[in-house]
Every structure is written in structure tokens, then in C-alpha cells.
């Protein structure tokens, strides 16, 4: 219980710091739109508008609940936006920060959560399926040895405290 309280306080502080940084960037952004024009995700998905996601932080955004959608998780972190931003804002990094905030709030898309769980369980982002194996065979690739280094990975994850941040199965579904 004691540790929980300490952790919560730390989380709150971190959230505030991150929010402040995002808001600072939102203030500086003069809404030219080069980021959206350069964004490969926005190109195929018109719902994803990183400029607008940042702009939203200027108004009505305060912890604990961000109530953002899954959209920030679509960022590919290709850094094209930072490369071209005339004000050096770098939306890729902003998206990282937002994702982090959302993670702290438990607002995690289920697909992402599943990937995390998969990593913890198997060390891989996606499971090895019979289709994968068949295809590898056709390409004369060797079979995948299962569960190599998984134990070591689990130890690393344990150290980072990631597991503690993960919501229970039910909670995770909420924002999925």
C-alpha cells in the first residue's frame, strides 16, 4: 500500500511534467500543417491528424483522464514531421509522450496491450502460427525455435516495472 502511494505520486508528477511539455509544444506550434502533409499514416487514414491531436492539448486537457482515442498510437515514429517542422516541435516525440501518458492512465488500445502481453509471454510481438512456419519452409528458412531467451526478457521487464503498470485483463479491454 505504501509503495502504491509513492508510485502514484511519482506518476502524477511525471504526468504533469509531460503534460506541461506537450502544452509548451502546442503553444509554439503555429498550425502550418507540414507534419500532417508529411505523415505516411495521415496519408492513408484521414482520421489521424497529429497536428490536431497536439492542438487539443491547448484546451480542456488535465489529468487524470485524457479521454483520448487510440489515434496517437498510430504514429509510426518515422520522424518525417520533425525533419520538416519549421518550429522543431517533432510530433513523433509528442506522440511518444502522449502514449506514455495514456499508458499511465490505463488508456491502452487492446491491440497494443496484446502485443505487450505477447512479448512478456513469448518474447515476440506476434505469435508464431502454422502459416508462418509453412511459409518459412517454402522459403527454405529454418524453423523458429520457441521460447529462446524468454526468461531473460521477463527478468528485464520485471526490472523496468512494466508489469505493474499493466492493467488487469478487464481494465485493458475498457479502452480497447
Amino acid at each position, binding site marked *: 500500500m505504501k509503495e502504491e502511494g509513492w508510485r502514484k505520486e511519482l506518476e502524477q508528477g511525471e504526468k504533469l511534467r509531460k503534460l506541461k511539455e506537450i502544452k509548451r509544444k502546442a503553444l509554439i506550434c503555429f*498550425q502550418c500543417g507540414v507534419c500532417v502533409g508529411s505523415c505516411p499514416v495521415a496519408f492513408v487514414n484521414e482520421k489521424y491528424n497529429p*497536428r*490536431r491531436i497536439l492542438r487539443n492539448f*491547448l*484546451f480542456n486537457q488535465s489529468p487524470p483522464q485524457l479521454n483520448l482515442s487510440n489515434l496517437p498510437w498510430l504514429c509510426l515514429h518515422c520522424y518525417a514531421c520533425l525533419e520538416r517542422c519549421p518550429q522543431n516541435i517533432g510530433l513523433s516525440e509528442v506522440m511518444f509522450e502522449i502514449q506514455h501518458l495514456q499508458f499511465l492512465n490505463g488508456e491502452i488500445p487492446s491491440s497494443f496491450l496484446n502485443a505487450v502481453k505477447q512479448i512478456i509471454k513469448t518474447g515476440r510481438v506476434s505469435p508464431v502460427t502454422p502459416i508462418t512456419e509453412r511459409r518459412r519452409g517454402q522459403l527454405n528458412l529454418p524453423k523458429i525455435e520457441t521460447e529462446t531467451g524468454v526468461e531473460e526478457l521477463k527478468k528485464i521487464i520485471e526490472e523496468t516495472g512494466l508489469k505493474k503498470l499493466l492493467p488487469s485483463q478487464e481494465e485493458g479491454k475498457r479502452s480497447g
Partner: protein
Amino acid sequence: METRIGVYICHCGTNIGGVLDCEALAKFASKLPNVVVAKDYKYMCADPGQEMIKKDIKEFKLNRVVVASCSPRMHEPTFRKCVEEAGLNPFFFEMANIREQVSWCHYDSPKQAFDKAKDLIKAAVAKARLLTPLTPLKVPVEKRVLVIGGGVAGIHAALDLADMGFKVYLVEKEPTIGGWMALLDKTFPTLDCSICILGPKMVDVAKHPNIELFTYSEVLDIEGFVGNFKVRILKKPRYVEVDKCNACSECVNVCPVEVPNKFDGNLGWRKAIYIPFPQAVPPAYLIDEDACLGITPLACGKCQEVCREKGGDAINFDMHPKVLEVNVGAIIVATGYELYDPSKIKEYGYGVYQNVITCFELERLINSSGPTYGKVIRPSDGKEPKKVAFIQCVGSRDEKANVYCSGFCCMYTIKNAILLKEKHPETEIYIFYIDIRANFKGYEEFYRRAREEGIIFIRGKPAEISENPSTKNLTIYCEDLGLGKVISLEVDLVILSTAAIPRHGKDELARKLNIVTGSDGFYLEAHPKLKPIDAATDGVFLCGSAQGPKDIPYSVSQASAAAARAARILSKDYWEIEPIVAYIDESKCRNPKTKCGICATKCPYGAITVEPKKPARVEPAKCHGCGTCAADCPGDAITQMHFTDAQILSQIHAILEENPEEKILCFLCNWCSYAGADLAGTSRLTYPPNARAVRVMCSGRVDKDFVLEAFRLGAGMVLVSGCRLTEFGSDCHYITGNVNAKKRMKIVEKILEKAGISKERFRLEWISASEGDKYAKIIKEMAEKMKKLGKEKIIEENRKAEPFLEKILKKKIT
């Protein structure tokens, strides 16, 4: 005296010689009437070419010289100088343009090019035969200058000229100099204290031995012309002797009358006896005649009593308006701007909602010598605002108010927002804008600084503001374009960035000065690119916001530029005026008999005066030589020197002597359309070689008779072209010459219709100097139409029209 003409054909290396047989052209020229000698040479403009002309003038006793070479826009001055050196009057020279308008644009059809060159040489020789000697007019220059307006621009212009050693009369309407800048708190983007940097300059003006300062004064009237203006100045009574007043302020303490102080944006109060602000120059009080109880009849007089008690005796109720007269050689107009009244925009509620104020009111609130000594408060309750919104472009960029951008509002809003934020960091500040214009040194950085300091910029023009009647708070409704959402924002205080508008009374001053205002209402410069400081009238210069809204650095730069432009005149003993001016034949002028005065209404420079029962009179020093009056004079009493009716008609006759029905005769203005035709050549654009240009200074010079005479002589097509004229304005180098040409050519169209000339055979166009392609395109179109109509139809139309046109032109062709 016998007319003896020498004609010189230039090869221009192979530029002309490669397309045209110059030797044959010289041979052709030698047979033209009055031509004594005709030669061709590789480079006429080079020294040996010029020497040849000079030698021939002596040897053959030449009294006219024609050079067929490049455009007169290129080398006319060179050859004028050359013949002058040989003892001829420089206006005894004429040029035929066989490079830009022949060899460079018709290299694909050398035979027809040769015919065109022949026509152009023939026309030049015909005009040369009728040339008259002209001498530049010289007027003496009064080495003094008048500066109207004592804001930051007027102050700098006055100081610059005074430092150069010229006597300056500085006239200011208000009781102090300093203008708007003296009332500001800080300046952008450096946040220098405004009065701290302007104050010393104001004192310099007062102390400068070469400056005579007239505050609380107005320009009554102005007569004369460049170098010789006579100005009458009205000095209003202050009722306080400036020399005796030591600004002790005892009088203010006893004065019983309080009125709103306009120098504080009417937010504070002042007495009937007052000083506009502590740093005023001259540093003396004055009595507001309308507010004072005592001037007539002497009913109060408390101020006078206390002043005498203190041993001052500065107050004098017997002061009267004084009229002074000064003579100056040049005038600088620095009358500045005013602010738009935002109560006209009802949806923002200025004047209805107490907590909606203007930028200037905020400026006074934030200023430590303002009504609240620098404390920004809400007018409704005197509390400091916690949430403030600025609204940009109030009355600017608005077709319903002022279409232009007022330029400096973005920056002063950012400045005031930063000042507010730095004084009270907890204040939330929002700026609603359409575009942020931060386009000079350090401005963009200043804009970024504002964002870094936490000021929120919202792109979107607020739709309306509503007031909460109990809290007097305001809610702004607006789309945030960045979000793509409509937002409503409740704030404590709204500041409107009102547009800068021309001064009240600017039209009256424009009439006195004979200058014009643009469609925005600000004074118009003589040329937007190359004469941005000169007004249309010679010797009058513009600087600062009188010419359009400007910030301080730009106003000061213009002030120094205006001082330099004025010094260009003042530094000379005599000012020379090009002699291609209008001249009135008094015996032909109809005004004495029939009250005409048309010429005076057409002149863009007010150079013509028409008094009842007297012939019209031209002031040559004011005339710019466009020739519009000459073209519109119903009695043909006006002649434009060097572009006389006879000279132009002789060119028309020469060009249309042979096969007129195959030719397109073009009347092109010197500054734009002729230059455009030259550009077509310079760009090596080819077009049909049957076009022949006659150069006039302005399309306003093209007389109806020129076009009618061309058709009477059987011309195939006629084109009249001037500087660009669109619904947005005119590029005319003589302000309104093309506008007059347009009106006149509408009448020509009607006459031609009556004469039975097909509509497509006459065309009026506006071609700028950069539109060589447009000129080539138009000539192509006209040539195609001419081909479509067919030679027979044209000849037939001309034959039928001839008696009708002859009747109209009777007086001219006899």
C-alpha cells in the same frame, strides 16, 4: 530655313544587320523628302557612330537627325546628347525602332520585316520634319521646406533636412509634436520605452536652429509649384504664452472644468487648461477653448490669477488666430493615420459592453503615464483581468470596412500581450487572428517569444461576443481553425485591434496640395515601385502612415527617404522641367466664349487653371506631359510639345501611305505598352509583321481623331494600348491617363459603328511593360481577324466610311 535631315541606319552588329539589309534601308531613306544624307553603320551608339553624326551635322548643315536602331527607350538620351554636342537642339532628333520592334521579332519573315522597317523610318523622317526646338524650363528653388505633421515620421524628416542646412517649417495640428508614438508605452520587437527614444528627438526639434515649429496649427492653403510653393499657416490661439509658461501645473489645480482626455483614449480626465502629456513639446499648457468657462466672456479666470500670483503671467485671454505665410521649395506630407471606430462592428459590442476596449485604450492603460499609471484594469469594476482576449483585424481586411491589412496591429498586439504577460504571468491571454503578419527584422522571433511565454494564438475571426450582465464577463464565439471546431471562451477583458485609417480631412489637404488618394484613402505615391516617396505633384513627398499604415522603423526610413528626395530639389538653385509640356493656343481656347474648362478636369496634376471668360492656363512646372488635355480639348487649342497633333498625324500618314488595309496601326504608351512591345522583341517572340507602332507618352494622349484618321486613310486595324487598368486600379504613370483614354475610346467605338467599320477592327487594350507575350498574342489575334474579314471587305468598309469620317475630321485635314 530649309529642313535638312540626316538618317543613320544602325546594324547593331548582326542584331539588325543579320535580318535587314541596312544598306538598302539607307538607300531608301536617302530618297525621302528633305533627307540630305543617309548612311548605315555597324554601331551607331559607339563613339565612331556618334562622331559620324556630329561630323555630318557640320558638313551637310543638317538640322534634323533620325537614327534607325534600337528602342528610343534605350538610346534616345544618348543621341539627344550627341546632336546637342554638335550644336543642334536635342529635340531635333527622332528615332526609328528597327531592332526591338523589327529585327528581333520578325526574323522569321525578313521580307515583310524590311517593309516594316521602311515604314518606321519613313514615319520618323515625317515627324522629324515637323520637330520644333525645345528648351528645358528652369524655375528658381526656394531653399526651405514645409513638413506637415509632427509624428515620428515628420520629426525625422524635419531633423534630417534641418541637419542638412535647410530651413524647415514643421506644422502640427495638435498642441504637441510626437504623434501616436509619444502615447505608446513600449515599442516592438525590442520593448524599448517609446517616449524614452522619441522624447529626445522631440526636444531636438524644439531646439534646432533650422526648425521653426508651428504646433496647434494647420495648413490653410498652398499655391505654386515645385521650388516655389507659397503656404499659409493658421496658428490657433493657445491662450498660454509658450515662452512664459514653465509648466508648473498650478493652473490645473484651480481649473474647475473637467473633460475626457483624448490623449488617454478618453479613459481619463483633464482640465480645460492642460498639457497633453508630461513630455509634450513645446512643454507648455494650453486652454481648451470649447471647455474653458472664461475666454469669452471672461467669467472664471482662476488660472490667470494663480499664474500671476506665482509671478508667471503666461495666460493671455486676448490671443487670436494668426495667419502666417511662408515660401518653400518642397513639401513633406507626414500626416499619419487615425484609428477605425470599432462600434461600427456591432457583433463585438464596443461601446455597449464596458469590458470591450480598443488597442489604443489598452496602450494608455499599460502606459505608466496613462490614466491608471500603468495598471491594466477592467472598465466595469476596476479589477485586474485574469483572462484576456485580443481580436485582430477589426475593420481591416474587411470589404465592409477597409479592404487592406493595417500592417502593424499583429505586432502591437503581440507586444501588449507580452507586456501584460510579463507584468502578470498568471493572466491567460488569447489572441484571435486571421493571419499573423510578422514580416520585418526581429518580428517573427518576437511572435515565437509570445508563444513561448504562454500566449495562446487561435486562428479564427470571432463571430460575436456576448456579455454576462451580472459579471460583465464576455464570451467569444469563434471557430478554432487549428482544431476545426467551434469554441466559446469566457474572458474578463476583450481588446480590439482596430484598423488604421486615413486622417480625417485628408481630402481637403489633398486638394490644397494637388495630390491624390488611392482606393484605400491614403495618399498615393507617384509610382508604387520607383517613386514610392514622391507624390503625384512635383516637389511634394510622402512619408509615414499618410501613405499607408506603417510601423515606426518603416516610417522613420521613409522620413529619411523623403528628406533626401526633397533635398534633391532644395540643393539646387534652379530646377529643370522636361519641356514636353502642354501649351494652350489662347486664340483657339473656347473658354472665354463658351465656358469650357474640360482640360482642367482631365489634368491629373491640377496644372491647368480655368478662370471665367479667360483662356485656360497651363502651369508648365506642374505639367508632367501626358497629353491627356491635348487629346480632350474640343477646340484643339492644346498642343503637347514634341507630341503635337501634326507630328503624330504625319507618322500615321507615313505608315499608311502604302497598302493601308494590310496594316495594324498601334498607339502605344511610352511607359507600359511600348515597353511591352519592346519586350516581345527582346524575348524574341515573333508576331505578324504588319503591326506598326506610334509611340505616345500616355494612352491619354490618343486623340479620337488619330483613330478616325487612321481608318479614313484605310487602315486595316487599329490598336490603342496603355498601362494596366483593372477594377482594382490603374498602373498609369500619369495617374488617370488610361482612364480618360478608356472613356474617349468608348466614343470612338460608337463613331466607328456608325461609320460601318466592323467592331473587331478597333481594339483597346492594357499591356504592361512586362507583358511582351500579351502584346504578341494580341497582334496575332488581330492579324487573324483581319485575314478572316478579308482585304476586300476592309477596302469596301473603308470606302463607305470615308465620307462620314471625312465630315467629322474636316477641321483637322484641311
